[in-house]
């Protein structure tokens, strides 16, 4: 009889920090201690607290162990599972009081990271074994599909989704119910329709969709079947990037299990509804996350966008009406069907109902995945859930929406996050990447980073994007090298607006956003680079100089030993009160790596 479950995170984050080895160690240790009949090991999806991985949770008490190593496993088994004593040193503790954790407060739900979260799309992630369809069914899985097929008409399904106020979680925020309604009604006599899922998550730093695919793949399958029923389709495609091998493998297992259980295939739930789906792996082009390019790629052609209209609801995959939704959007659907539109509307704000998953990254303590009701303030996400910024540094900005989004400065920390508020301040929700930057980040450099990305990823089909982003990047480079004039700044802004107006697809139309939003909130930093030839954050290398303050130098020579360019040499000068001659840096040889600064115990090396 099983009396305890050991949940081991098998998400990409924890897998790369060794959770597979830990799982093996647990299996061995349970056998060695005669517990294999009493304790079950479950590999789950992502718990969200990736920074503290590998993560292990022991139920029924819910004890949350972080940064577990293979050496710790024996102790957890012997102490906790055999004798019932929580291994305190491994319990995640966010109170800073490392001395003692009461066993009843060792649970994940008691941490600040989880307390203000509301898990809807992620509700099964880290709870069930994604490779076991029966565990999904135990969590009311496929009940929504059953309800839809046996009790609801397609129009009722669409009405429910419309009433819920669910909007596309891929970033643009188009009402999902509206999308389904159009695909159902616009082309009356279509002989074939399709549903598709955009799992080509390409924003740097974003991994919301990956975690849903890895942690709860059946939710996606169920939701796509519901969408298919609503619009009158019988085939589905999931376009997932090949860089997500764990997600791909679990999705394949899930699809096969769903077929075995008759949840995909013919006459599902004894009705005349047939539905099946397949995977298409993307080769990693960012533009394939754009809907028309994605569909072109599924059709087996080069992934390039095409002009809209016609919209996919009229002419989508293989020229047939198609609904294309993002993974997270789909993950909300079964819950809305089961619990009702009003329940969904009760979360979030008036115009943005429900929750949103964010991938927290950058200069923040709790790197990971969080799901909060729409309308939660950025401050709450960063300070409370994210645990603030390490090293006591100051918050400077948060970047949302990746290469299509913008920066939110400290003055807007208290803005409730939803689609419309973010647009109003020149950023966008995007798919949910949220990169926090501290005072040491240079905003010009950030804009340049994202532009480098879009220049690389521009497919080249239209000129405004192909040439325009390249010219933008050149202007930014000129600024970071201190060679630009104020006139360039105006030209750059003009070019940004030109690209936005004229590019063919979403990639180009949003590519200038990182530049425009940093210009809007951090114009003084651009001016500092141009007029004063200084990078206030000390990031842009061309504008940096390193020098040694000779009167502080003890002449120990540590810096010279560390210098990879032999740019530091001994002088004849001995500072008053010192015994050895001081060193100096030759600016012509210095490569500005900054290696010397860390070696100097006397803080004699100045970056400026």
């Amino acid at each position, binding site marked *: 009889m099983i009396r305890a479950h050991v949940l081991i995170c098998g998400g990409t984050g924890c897998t790369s920090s060794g959770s597979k080895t830990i799982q093996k160690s647990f299996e061995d240790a349970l056998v060695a201690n005669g517990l294999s009949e009493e304790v079950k090991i479950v590999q789950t999806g992502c718990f969200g607290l990736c920074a503290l991985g590998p993560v292990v949770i022991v139920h029924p008490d819910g004890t949350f162990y972080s940064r577990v190593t293979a050496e710790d496993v024996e102790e957890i088994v012997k102490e906790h599972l055999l004798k*019932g004593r929580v291994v305190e040193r491994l319990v995640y503790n966010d109170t800073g009081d490392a001395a003692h954790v009461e066993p009843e407060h060792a649970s994940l739900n008691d941490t600040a990271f989880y307390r203000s979260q509301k898990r809807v799309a992620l509700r099964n992630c880290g709870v069930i074994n994604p490779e076991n369809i029966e565990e999904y069914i135990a969590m009311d899985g496929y009940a929504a599909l*059953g309800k839809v097929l046996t009790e609801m008409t397609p129009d009722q399904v669409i009405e429910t989704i419309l009433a819920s106020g669910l909007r596309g979680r891929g970033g643009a925020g188009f009402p999902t119910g509206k999308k389904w309604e159009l695909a159902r009604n616009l082309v009356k006599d279509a002989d074939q329709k399709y549903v598709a899922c955009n799992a080509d998550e390409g924003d740097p730093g974003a991994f919301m969709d990956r975690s849903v695919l890895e942690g709860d793949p059946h939710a996606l399958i169920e939701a796509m079947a519901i969408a298919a029923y609503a619009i009158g389709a019988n085939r589905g495609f999931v376009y997932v990037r090949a860089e997500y091998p764990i997600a791909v493998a679990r999705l394949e297992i899930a699809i096969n299990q769903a077929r075995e259980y008759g949840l995909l295939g013919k006459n599902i739930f004894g009705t005349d509804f047939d539905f099946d789906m397949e995977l298409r792996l993307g080769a990693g082009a960012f533009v394939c996350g754009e809907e028309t390019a994605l569909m072109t790629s599924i059709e087996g052609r080069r992934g390039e966008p095409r002009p809209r209209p016609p919209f996919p609801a009229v002419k989508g995959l293989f020229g047939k009406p198609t609904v294309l939704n993002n993974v997270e959007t789909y993950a909300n659907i079964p819950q809305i069907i089961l619990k009702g539109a009003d329940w969904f509307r009760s979360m979030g704000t008036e115009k943005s109902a429900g929750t949103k998953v964010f991938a927290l990254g950058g200069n923040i303590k709790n790197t990971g995945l969080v799901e909060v009701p729409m309308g939660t303030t950025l401050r709450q996400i960063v300070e409370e859930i994210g645990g603030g910024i390490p090293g006591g540094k100051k918050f400077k900005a948060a970047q949302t929406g990746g290469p299509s989004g913008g920066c939110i400065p400290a003055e807007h920390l208290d803005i409730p996050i939803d689609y419309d508020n973010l647009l109003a301040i020149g950023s966008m929700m995007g798919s949910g990447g949220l990169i926090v930057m501290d005072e040491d980040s240079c905003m010009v450099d950030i804009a340049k980073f994202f532009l480098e990305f879009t220049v690389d990823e521009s497919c080249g089909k239209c000129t405004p994007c192909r040439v325009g982003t390249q010219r933008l990047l050149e202007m930014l480079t000129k600024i970071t090298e201190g060679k630009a004039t104020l006139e360039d700044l105006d030209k750059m802004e003009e070019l940004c607006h030109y690209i936005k107006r004229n590019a063919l697809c979403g990639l180009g139309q949003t590519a200038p956003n990182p530049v425009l939003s940093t210009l809007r909130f951090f114009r003084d930093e651009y001016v500092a680079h141009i007029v004063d030839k200084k990078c206030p954050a000390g990031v842009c290398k061309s504008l940096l100089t390193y020098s040694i303050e000779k009167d502080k130098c003890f002449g120990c020579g540590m810096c010279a030993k560390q210098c990879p360019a032999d740019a530091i040499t001994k002088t004849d000068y001995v500072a008053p009160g010192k015994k050895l001659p001081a060193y100096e840096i030759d600016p012509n040889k210095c490569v500005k790596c900054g290696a010397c600064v860390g070696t100097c115990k006397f803080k004699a090396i100045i970056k400026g």
Partner: protein
Amino acid sequence: MKSLAELAAIRDKMKNKVVIREGSNETRVVVGMATCGIAAGARPVLSAFVEGVNEAGLAGSVTVTQTGCIGICQYEPVVEIYESGKEKVTYVKMTPEKAAEVIEKHLKGGKVIEEYTIK
């Protein structure tokens, strides 16, 4: 999958196996499992509770878990029952047979078996 009933059957069968992870249980049965407890026979008691609670269909509301030494080693195996809003009940010198009785009378019937509690 041919019917809703078929789906419900799988759900009900599996529910007991995953409910342990939900942690929203109102009642906690805690078995002392330190060296003293194990030596006095706490393991069969723990098993009896785990199995009995499941068989009685109480897995959704009762959590069976373990703890270390409670400090009254001469009374082991010791079992504590925490119910929300009620005072903790401590049963001592437990056996699998007594455990079955506690499940029946206390957990199901709501009546504390005074003679097994600590005097």
